[in-house]
């Protein structure tokens, strides 16, 4: 697809004069193809519009070098623009990509991580994945607690994942409500000498006023150093509404994109990043607990373009 976008832009632009600068009219047709590619990749329309405006401005007036064709040049401008919008800084002089943004562990231990998102997005699995990595790789002592008192067997699910990952979970107390569970988890974290307390929450719709107020109260009670939106890489146009609402209501510090092992083009990543300005910190790339990867803007950019 990246190749086919290249081909398309090539056939649109490469017939132009090999010298001189790109004119607005030259670039317009190319931008229609870019727009289409981004929409097919599920980038949200308002984000596509902004992006196209930026890229167009950059492309117009560019001197077409003898060595590159205009099509290739525009593809590069589009690609670099995507990388930048996804939060990737320019690679360093020697070409190595910048280090991805890490998790924030600063603060008096135990620090809380709050995991939020829509139903079924992958919060519980991702909670266990992050806990496992913090414990195994970063040698942190981690406690996990499920605040999901709604979904059938949700607390049981986290307990089993804790056993698989060899990470402690807060004992389940039947009937206890989310804010109280969160407080109990922080207390257990303090008494037990834990570094991190991971709080897995129930899936909720961003428009569910009652449940959004609940998660805001959990945040107030635990003062988390990370509030992570867990979102499905297959999400469509609604990604902007979801990310924007969660961000406004609970103040996100990062995004974890799940099901990146699928074949979705993942335009939602761009939408969510653009609307929240929050870094995408981690990727879920499978159901198993070690299937967790760092985010690299250039890879996702290539994927959105279908590379």
């Amino acid at each position, binding site marked *: 697809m990246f190749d086919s976008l290249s081909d398309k832009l090539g056939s649109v632009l490469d017939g132009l004069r090999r010298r001189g600068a790109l004119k607005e009219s030259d670039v317009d047709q190319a931008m229609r193809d870019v727009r289409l590619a981004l*929409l097919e990749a599920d980038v949200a*329309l308002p984000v596509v519009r902004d992006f196209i405006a930026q890229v167009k401005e950059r492309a117009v007036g560019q001197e077409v070098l003898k060595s590159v064709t205009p099509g290739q040049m525009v593809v590069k401008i589009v690609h670099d623009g995507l990388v930048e919008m996804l939060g990737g800084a320019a690679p360093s002089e020697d070409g190595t990509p910048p280090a991805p943004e890490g998790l924030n562990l600063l603060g008096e231990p135990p620090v809380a991580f709050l995991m939020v998102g*829509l139903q079924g997005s992958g919060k519980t699995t991702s909670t266990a994945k992050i806990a496992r990595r913090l414990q195994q790789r970063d040698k942190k002592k981690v406690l996990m607690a499920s605040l999901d008192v709604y979904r059938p067997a949700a607390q049981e*699910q986290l307990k089993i994942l804790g056993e*698989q990952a060899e990470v402690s979970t807060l004992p389940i107390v039947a009937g206890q409500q989310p804010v109280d569970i969160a407080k109990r988890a922080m207390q257990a974290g303090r008494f037990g000498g834990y570094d991190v307390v991971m709080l897995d929450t129930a899936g909720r719709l961003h*428009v569910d006023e009652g449940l959004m107020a609940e998660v805001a109260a959990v945040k107030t009670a635990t003062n988390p150093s990370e509030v992570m939106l867990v979102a499905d890489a*297959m999400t*469509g146009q609604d990604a902007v509404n979801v990310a924007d609402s969660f961000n406004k209501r609970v103040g996100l510090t990062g995004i974890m994109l799940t099901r990146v092992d*699928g074949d979705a083009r993942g335009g939602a990543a761009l939408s969510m990043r653009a609307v929240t300005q929050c870094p995408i910190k981690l990727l879920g790339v499978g159901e198993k607990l070690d299937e967790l990867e760092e985010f690299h803007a250039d890879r996702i950019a290539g994927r959105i373009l279908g590379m």
Partner: protein
Amino acid sequence: FTKRKLDAAAVEELEDLLVMADLGPATAAKLAAAISKERFDKEVDPDEIRGALADEVAAILEPVAKPLTTDSGAKPHVVLVAGVNGSGKTTTIGKFAKHLQAEGKTVMLAAGDTFRAAAIEQLKVWGDRTGATVVAKEQGADAAGLAFDAIERARREGVDVLLIDTAGRLHNKSGLMEELKKIVRVIRKMDETAPHDVLLVLDATTGQNAIAQVETFKEMVNVTGLVVTKLDGTAKGGVLVALAERFALPVHAIGVGEQADDLRPFAARDFARGLMGLED
């Protein structure tokens, strides 16, 4: 209301509305072009033109709006439920169990997700909630074997409908798709008319990837119908329009919440008007 000329800008606005409802750029462009061909340069009232577009979409969806019928005559009528991870399969099974029982049918549930942590416990809670019997083995057991046992038991107990849950799987994972095919093979060995329905559960939040999901699941396990969940949020699920045009699979029901009663028939007109941001 103020009338406005349907000029290029107005047509583009309509197209944008469709894109933002997840119809995808190609379908959105096609529908917007059709409406503009009919009324270009005419004075139209904005609500009326949206209504006309909604009618157009409803006409595409009408033929696929078909409730699930479980009267194949087979006992049990076997319904296999599949889909990508987290789409709402297990919850949808719980909802169907309640719905079918209200129709006077006896229902049995098979905990065919033997992989995910607490998937079996989750289905058991749905069994408790609805009073349906749940057939389960331990986590890690062979899912096809579980399906075999469940059909045998459903036969013995004279159950009307057997709903088989499966583990979530991404359509691009060939190993997992082979496992699903194996479940179907084992079911077919016991009753060559079964599974009588293979439901693919789609999450309305999903964008254009739903097309690839349907394509692959249909090819691999002969999906007979769709259920779209999570329509209680702000996602419109417009990819269904492209799906209806391309695959013409029945849409049996929609999910509008997490409770047993939150299952609705798929109503083409309401859905189409929802896509266009029109109430009622």
